[in-house]
């Protein structure tokens, strides 16, 4: 079976695509052979001309597949398919493929409108108010959960999405394997048609699509991966540190005192009262964010391991299903050419 091979020298001029129906344009403009399209004898002279016209000498007509003819050739094509099916394997992922690194995520800094308000009667009262405010905006569960949630949602969408996308589209981790098998089938189909005639195998035999079921437990686990944000151990790691009590953060802030006019005394003299305020909330909030990021990185191995083990379990089942479906195609093909 003859096909056109396009080398890496292709400059994407498109001349061959205009002049031949055996090639198509990739997204980047370079030419690629259409899988499963064998050059017909009647087109060979024209295709030779197309090849010779390539300004980069990037095209070549190659002979692929069996040298045998008729049913003997078809059998060899089937044997080759069987070997490909046997060798087919889904590459398992490593932790480094799904890294969770805090530096890739932005955690918004909370701010308070109570900062700088001189309304506390003592240093202790100002400090207590500062701590309450810090607790409300950073340290309490209601405050840090949305922060972690944001990181986990971003991680899920940007890193894990290909593994829970079960649609036949490029963004899915399973797509490339489907494409690989489709190419095998398309080439085998073209070759067998050439060997024993076009009417023996229905064109629909080339169709192939195997994806993990959407209802798979592990697929759903990945799809809802952000739900594990609160059980990830990040906050425990943070709070286990010796300098991360709410009091420690409150101490980072500044406390100022000023005298406030409160009216006139009994004999007409002005009366003043000492009032306290807290400032520098942003410093404490910033340190909290940094500590939170540290805790995320500290726990990242465990988080990645949870995701990776689910992904690899999905891959185990997917590989089995992929091979099974491929096998079924080969069996069907054997029936067709009997």
């Amino acid at each position, binding site marked *: 079976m003859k096909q056109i091979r396009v080398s890496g020298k292709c400059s994407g*001029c498109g001349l061959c695509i205009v*002049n031949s129906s055996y090639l198509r344009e990739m*997204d*980047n*403009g370079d030419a690629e052979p259409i899988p499963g399209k064998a050059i017909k004898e009647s087109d060979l002279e024209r295709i030779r001309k197309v090849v010779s016209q390539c300004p980069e000498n990037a095209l070549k007509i190659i002979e692929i597949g069996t040298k045998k003819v008729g049913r003997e050739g078809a059998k060899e094509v089937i044997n080759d398919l069987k070997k490909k099916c046997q060798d087919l394997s889904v590459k398992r992922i490593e932790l480094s493929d799904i890294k969770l690194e805090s530096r890739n995520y932005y955690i918004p800094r909370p701010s*308070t409108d109570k900062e700088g308000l001189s309304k506390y009667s003592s240093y202790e009262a100002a400090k207590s108010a500062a701590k309450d405010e810090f607790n409300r*905006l950073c340290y309490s569960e209601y405050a840090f959960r*949305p922060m972690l949630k944001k990181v986990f*949602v971003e991680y899920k969408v940007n890193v894990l*999405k290909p593994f829970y996308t079960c649609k036949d589209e490029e963004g899915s981790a399973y797509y490339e394997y489907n494409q690989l098998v489709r190419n095998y089938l398309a080439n085998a189909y073209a070759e067998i048609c050439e060997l024993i005639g076009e009417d023996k195998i229905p064109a629909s035999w080339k169709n192939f699509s195997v994806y993990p079921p959407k209802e798979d437990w592990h697929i759903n686990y990945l799809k809802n991966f952000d739900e594990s944000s609160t059980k990830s151990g990040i906050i425990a790691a943070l709070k286990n540190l010796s300098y991360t009590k709410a009091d420690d953060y409150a101490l980072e802030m500044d406390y100022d005192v000023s005298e406030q006019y409160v009216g006139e005394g009994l004999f007409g003299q002005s009366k003043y009262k000492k009032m306290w305020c807290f400032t520098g909330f942003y410093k404490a909030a910033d340190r909290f964010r940094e500590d939170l990021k540290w805790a995320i990185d500290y726990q990242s191995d465990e988080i990645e391991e949870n995701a990776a083990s689910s992904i690899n379990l999905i891959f185990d089942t997917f590989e089995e299903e992929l091979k099974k479906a491929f096998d079924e195609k080969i069996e069907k093909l054997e029936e067709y050419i009997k």
Partner: protein
Amino acid sequence: MILEGLAVAAFIKTCCDTDEALTMEEGALKKYARAFERSEEAELLVQKKAEYTDKRLANVAKKKKAIIQNTVPRFVEVYGKIQRIELENKTSVNELVIKNNVKKMEILSEISILSKKDFTDKELICGLITKGFGGMIKADAERYLSAASSQMRASNVAYSQAKSIGEAYDAIVGRADRIADLLMKMNALFIGSIAETEKTIAKNGLDIGNYSEYEKGVLMTCVNIAAAMSDIISIPVVNEQGQLYESAKEMVEKGEQYLKKMNQLIQA
């Protein structure tokens, strides 16, 4: 889906800065996560669209480069011979064609001289080749950059403008593909015509008396196609601000009509 997500994102972004978002309860947290996820997905899709647009713009640049570096030098050589036929024979076979297209031929000659210099993708996409070669050589720096997408990315357009982002990318890709298709087909036509002209000149030499009317037509057609090619190479996709050139639409339509006419003539 993208637009819905992006609209939600605008809302979330606002929420994010407020205390309310930071002190939410379970139900609200789930809602927040869902909406934030949709916005993240929308952002991812927009990013993919931007990458695809980059590729399609680079494709236009590839097609133009191929014509400039391979086809134009071949034409310039043939064109030199056509001129010699005219000069040696005072009868001006191609006078009309050459007179009418003298400026365009000059542009092609200049492109041929400059074909050794690497045109940047930006120059090819923004169509600066008609705006003076001198300036172009000076402004050599910005490579591998599609004006459109860099503009989109650099300006970090607000989520609320998601609709226009999506539409802008689609429009740019649509225009880029149309121009690339036209360039590809015109190049094929041009190469065919140059080959035919080379053959005709090789057969008849420089004496006009040896040429039949049909063969004179072959020569004229080649010069005609070259003139059209000069216009088509110069069609910009976007300007430096990443906006579509409105006038380019008309130029593309003209080019497509020309191509159609030429193909009809060839088939006839």
